[in-house]
């Protein structure tokens, strides 16, 4: 693959961006605080639209030197925005430590800190989303917290793909007209407020464009190397304030500006972009045909555009950062794939964007590639080429399993076929679906613990669930399963109750008119997206973690209830964190998920189906379904910290299996094909919220054409096996060193030795050293 030249302009923009310290920003908080008090009597939707418009009018803006795509939500890049309406209680304790905390520190200005402490915190104490939710479900939420993490209590929802095509087609002025037409016919006050809010928000967005146009013109006049570029940017921002996008450059600017606007309205994670190569292609093609654009010109614009996605970050509390460590803001872009008739939709932009990713090597946008049975060899090779650099992008999705799963979840064939990815790996329709994909995380390993230990927590001894028995009393494996199901019912029911309250509070207190205007269904029905206006409404429940559950159940079924290990003895060992290493060895030696063994893998599918069936009994506040996800981002670490020793041999507090459907660390011993085969035994048709599989490869896998070919063949098999998602870590020297230190944890690390591939930790130290030295040259 030809890597585009990173010009001096791009290199400087990138360096400057990464050099600029992250700062906490309260500028928008001040505006929200003021407008809220001025418009106490307005409906929340109207009040929020006014606060948003004020922000568009007042926020200090700047243009980075030489950038061709402009816009940000704060003056600085990568600032952490304080958003009082959602949840700021954590700041009370954490704000002083914000500049020095280990995970994602932000610099603070003493005046801003004083404003937060003296003004915001006291005033908003009982008015935030968080406090209102707590007032309603606090005790219940706390009671189930060891098992279920109810998300989105402290920030707006996000997790959605707006209708980018519509935004390009109409722009803020066109959408404003559309809202006005609906406003004329609106029959209730609620609807009138909603349409009026859209009108206000769109006015604000146009104003924001004009302010950037003016600033760019000012900089052009100041005369400098980029004067001509600033002039261009100024002109196109002026046009976009009033008109739809017409050129490729305008389209890129418009798409980015939409992302900025959505962030200013919601300050939320995971506003994703869907199939950007498709939406932008007509503009690209037209510009090429009409001689306005060259491929090199398009690359330079795309480089500028991709850089922007790294300029907005999410400021989280210390606790949240543990669950979403290093997880940035979730601007996901998908490339390639097919349509509902099976026709392949890869185009030149799919390839250009991969090349841009290779050149920039930045974490955002979170680039995803859609594979299907017809994916071109060139596209697979291009993906492999970017993956070879490490960093895990693009992650790969499988049209052949995802499209049917989304249809099963209620999407039309056409909407399912044009799916995109939200945030990390969540599946969603583009521009028509509020998936609430990260609604809750359900720790099934903890539920098993409570099932086996008489409803008591192994770590604290607290009663967290009803006592249905214990491993010392259940007479059969079937009795264990029955009790496990009953305990799951118990928590699922309470989880739904909590989530629905949270969902309702978002509709009540955090309606998002601007977002609603670009989600299909809302405008037509006059209902905000947070209240169920979208065509599709669902809530995603993450089942955490299949590998530990299955491996534990296999031990119970095949050892304990086959008379090879006493239930009472095992329970005692769980309580004592495997005081007896021999018992722990015995369970570690039992068959494990990830080795293509039908006897374990059949359990995996059984419990996925049970959970999916169970969730289907319920409806969320927006009238949509609950559906199942198998991914955890980084939550397997904190969630594992909360689980005592488990029957699979995992010690108390140790992380659960990673990813979502990955085998437990060190459990898989037969390599990548066996992992994929085990994963494929899951019924993906029922996993419509998304799944995550992590795999690791040595970088040498990508060096020789012959092994790269085999990697691409592995991807084709991944498609044929019907697994939703896979991502590849290409191993670094650092990891090899860590593997040397802790071999058990890295048992699955595959490495190209000489003429063959081997497990790194099984090699002699001297050879490992040699490989590390070799890898150093390679990476």
């Amino acid at each position: 693959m030809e890597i585009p030249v990173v010009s001096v302009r791009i290199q400087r923009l990138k360096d400057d961006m990464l050099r600029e310290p992250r700062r906490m920003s309260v500028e928008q908080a001040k505006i929200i605080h003021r407008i809220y008090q001025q418009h106490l009597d307005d409906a929340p939707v109207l009040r929020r639209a006014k606060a948003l418009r004020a922000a568009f009018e007042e926020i200090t803006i700047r243009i980075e030197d030489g950038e061709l795509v402009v816009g940000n939500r704060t003056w600085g890049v990568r600032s952490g925005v304080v958003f009082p309406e959602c949840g700021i209680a954590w700041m009370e304790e954490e704000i002083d430590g914000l500049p020095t905390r280990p995970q994602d520190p932000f610099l603070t200005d003493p005046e801003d800190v004083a404003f937060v402490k003296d003004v915001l915190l006291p005033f908003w104490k009982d008015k935030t989303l968080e406090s209102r939710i707590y007032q309603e479900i606090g005790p219940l939420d706390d009671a189930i917290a060891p098992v279920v993490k109810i998300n989105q209590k402290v920030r707006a929802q996000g997790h959605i793909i707006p209708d980018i095509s519509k935004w390009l087609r109409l722009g803020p002025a066109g959408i404003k007209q559309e809202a006005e037409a609906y406003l004329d016919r609106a029959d209730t006050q609620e609807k009138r407020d909603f349409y009026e809010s859209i009108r206000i928000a769109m006015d604000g967005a146009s104003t924001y464009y004009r302010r950037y146009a003016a600033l760019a013109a000012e900089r052009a006049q100041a005369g400098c190397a980029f004067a001509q570029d600033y002039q261009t940017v100024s002109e196109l921002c002026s046009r976009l304030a009033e008109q739809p996008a017409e050129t490729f450059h305008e389209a890129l600017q418009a798409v980015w500006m939409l992302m900025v606007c959505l962030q200013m309205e919601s300050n939320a994670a995971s506003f994703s972009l869907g199939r950007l190569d498709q939406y932008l292609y007509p503009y690209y093609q037209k510009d090429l045909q009409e001689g306005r654009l060259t491929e090199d010109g398009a690359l330079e614009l795309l480089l500028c555009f991709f850089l922007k996605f790294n300029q907005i970050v999410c400021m989280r509390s210390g606790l949240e950062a543990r669950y979403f460590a290093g997880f940035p803001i979730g601007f996901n872009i998908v490339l390639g794939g097919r349509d509902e008739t099976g026709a392949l939709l890869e185009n030149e932009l799919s390839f250009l964007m991969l090349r841009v990713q290779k050149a920039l090597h930045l974490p955002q946008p979170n680039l995803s590639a859609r594979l299907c049975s017809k994916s071109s060899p060139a596209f697979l090779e291009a993906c492999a080429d970017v993956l070879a650099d490490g960093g895990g992008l693009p992650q790969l999705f499988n049209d052949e399993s995802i499209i049917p799963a989304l249809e099963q979840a209620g999407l039309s064939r056409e909407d399912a076929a044009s799916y995109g990815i939200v945030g990390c790996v969540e599946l969603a329709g583009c521009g028509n679906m509020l998936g609430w994909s990260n609604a809750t995380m359900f720790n099934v390993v903890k539920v098993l613990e409570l099932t086996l230990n008489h409803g008591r927590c192994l770590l604290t001894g607290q009663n967290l669930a009803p006592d249905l028995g214990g491993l010392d009393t259940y007479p059969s494996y079937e009795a264990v399963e029955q009790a496990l199901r009953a305990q799951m019912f118990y928590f699922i029911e309470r989880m739904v109750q909590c989530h629905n309250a949270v969902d309702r509070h978002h509709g009540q207190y955090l309606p998002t008119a601007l977002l609603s205007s670009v989600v299909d269904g809302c405008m037509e029905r006059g209902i905000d997206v947070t209240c169920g206006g979208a065509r599709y409404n669902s809530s995603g429940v993450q089942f955490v973690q299949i590998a530990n559950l299955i491996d534990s159940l296999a031990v119970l079924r095949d050892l304990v209830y086959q008379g090879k290990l006493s239930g009472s003895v095992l329970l005692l060992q769980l309580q004592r964190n495997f005081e007896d290493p021999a018992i722990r060895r015995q369970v570690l030696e039992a068959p494990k998920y990830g080795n293509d063994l039908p006897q374990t893998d059949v359990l995996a599918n059984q419990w996925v189906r049970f959970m999916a069936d169970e969730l289907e009994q319920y409806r969320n506040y927006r009238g949509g379904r609950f559906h199942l996800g198998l991914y955890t981002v980084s939550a397997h670490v904190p969630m594992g910290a909360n689980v005592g020793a488990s029957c699979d041999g995992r010690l108390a507090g140790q992380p659960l299996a990673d990813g979502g459907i990955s085998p437990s660390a060190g459990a898989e011993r037969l390599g990548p094909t066996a992992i994929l085969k085990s994963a494929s035994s899951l019924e993906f048709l029922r996993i419509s919220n998304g799944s995550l599989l992590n795999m690791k490869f040595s970088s040498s896998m990508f060096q020789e054409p012959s092994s790269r070919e085999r990697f691409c063949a592995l991807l084709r098999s991944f498609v044929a096996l019907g697994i939703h998602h896979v991502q590849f870590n290409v191993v670094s020297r650092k990891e090899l060193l860590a593997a040397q230190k802790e071999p058990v944890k890295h048992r699955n690390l595959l490495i190209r030795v000489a003429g063959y591939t081997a497990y790194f930790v099984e090699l002699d130290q001297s050879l490992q050293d040699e490989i590390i030295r070799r890898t150093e040259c390679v990476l």
Partner: protein
Amino acid sequence: MSGEIFGAVFNIQKFCIHDGPGIRTTVFFKGCPLRCRWCANPESQAVHSQMMYDRSLCLRCGYCEKACPNGGIHLTDDGVVIDRDLCTGCGSCVNACAIYGGKALSMQGDLKTVDEVVAEVLKDQVFYQSSGGGATFSGGEVLSQLEFAEAIAVQLKRHGIHIACETAGYAPPEAFRRLMSFTDLLLFDVKHHDEASHLAGTGVSNAQILANLRMAVTEGKPVIARIPVIPGFNNRPGDAEAFGLLLRDIGIQEANLLPFHQFGQGKYEKLAMEYDYDDVPSLQKEDLEPMKKVLETYVSKVQIGG
């Protein structure tokens, strides 16, 4: 029933990407008539199961001694001593070591039925299809368990699986012809061009081997000749030319040069076997470049590594 034919297999390795085309599963048959002094898989030489003992993992707990029904294993200050004459390969000590000890003991070689091997190989069919891969029979020496291998191959062929055989080719012509009948690609070891040197290095003459190689080529079987390049044995001045002349004469179109490595070193100690190449450094890819250059003047396609 082919399922009732047993054979000794010491490993079935998935995702092999250097033993023939595509993604493959390699079945390692135990037992080899050759005794190559540099052999990297000494556990593959004997047909019967063998105990492997890793001193560095041993906890000196003595549970293996208690577990052995024949009194064939003893704990000493320096770890355990296995009386290989008393060992029947029952595996009691291995189990004890896995649960109570440090996993220092392992059994090399498993008796498997044809059906078991076939089922394991078929598991990765989807990967063979997407990559043009298949199964590779390796060893040890597949010829040493020809009936077993043949029975496996017959079943795999019913599923359209491509079969490569990695062989030293040391067998009577009738036996070799049987091997060829189910093989789609031969990865044929040519360890030395000179008969006396071959005998000294491997314990057998290369006359029958070369005759079989010639037969395979004559009958149009796809063959890749593989030369393990062993320091001081077959990389002396003039060796490359001699190999070239030989391979050209036989009609070989493709050859691989496999650099000598030391991955087998640790296994000799674990098996209590003597190793002649203890202090010989591994060869690197670069070391083989001159030989490759020479060979390329005789054989159309030469690559370093498999």
